[in-house]
């Protein structure tokens, strides 16, 4: 099936991004197509390559970049990103900044859209 995922919260602060990641990887293992992950609200902070994570913790941004490497579209909402100091200069590999139209497309084209938020 075609899955899309909406992430509404920032990394580490809330578990939402962790849960979304676990869900996405489990769905990919089951050969579902992930047509996109949309990062909204504080979710945009997941895309910052400036995050400097201790070796004994998971690196949330890097995990998402690895998902992106497998061909999943990681879309960061531009309006939400601007408010939180996220721009192209700080974007980790695999993420792209775009508009809410992309979320609309995901809503229309997916069989399932799952929201992870707080």
């Amino acid at each position: 099936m075609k899955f899309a995922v909406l992430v509404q919260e920032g990394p580490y602060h809330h578990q939402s991004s962790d849960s979304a990641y676990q869900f996405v990887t489990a769905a990919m293992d089951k050969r579902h197509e992930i047509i996109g992950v949309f990062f909204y609200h504080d979710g945009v902070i997941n895309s910052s390559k400036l995050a400097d994570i201790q070796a004994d913790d998971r690196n949330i941004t890097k995990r998402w970049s690895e998902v992106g490497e497998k061909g999943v579209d990681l879309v960061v909402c531009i309006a939400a990103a601007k408010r939180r100091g996220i721009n192209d200069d700080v974007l980790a590999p695999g993420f792209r900044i775009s508009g809410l139209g992309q979320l609309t497309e995901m809503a229309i084209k997916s069989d399932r859209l799952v929201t992870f938020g707080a």
Partner: protein
Amino acid sequence: MSDVSKIMFVMRKAPYGTIYSFEGLETVLIMGAYEQDVSLLFVDDGVYSIKKGTDTTPLGIKNFSPTFRVLEGYDIEKLYIDKESMDSRGLTLDDFVVEPEVLDKEQIAKLMEEQDVLFPF
């Protein structure tokens, strides 16, 4: 699935205390341009999002509640509100900047089941 998706925004959070309601509205305005079957449901503290008489001047925060009035211009005319959420908060239709259709919980449950996608904000 038909060419048109049924997309419902479930506004559940109070405005101003957190940004969900405001950024949710921004999403609604964009989706309005995509000619889908878009509706808005106000439940729980989300009913406060359309409260009349908001004045955010002293806080310097953007007063977005009146913006819900422009939805009609975006061809988003399906606005619903949960009766129990209104009642328990002492609110009536006169309190709102728009005039949503008042539904009971059974009607809302049914409406939610009919959607293709639900966006909670």
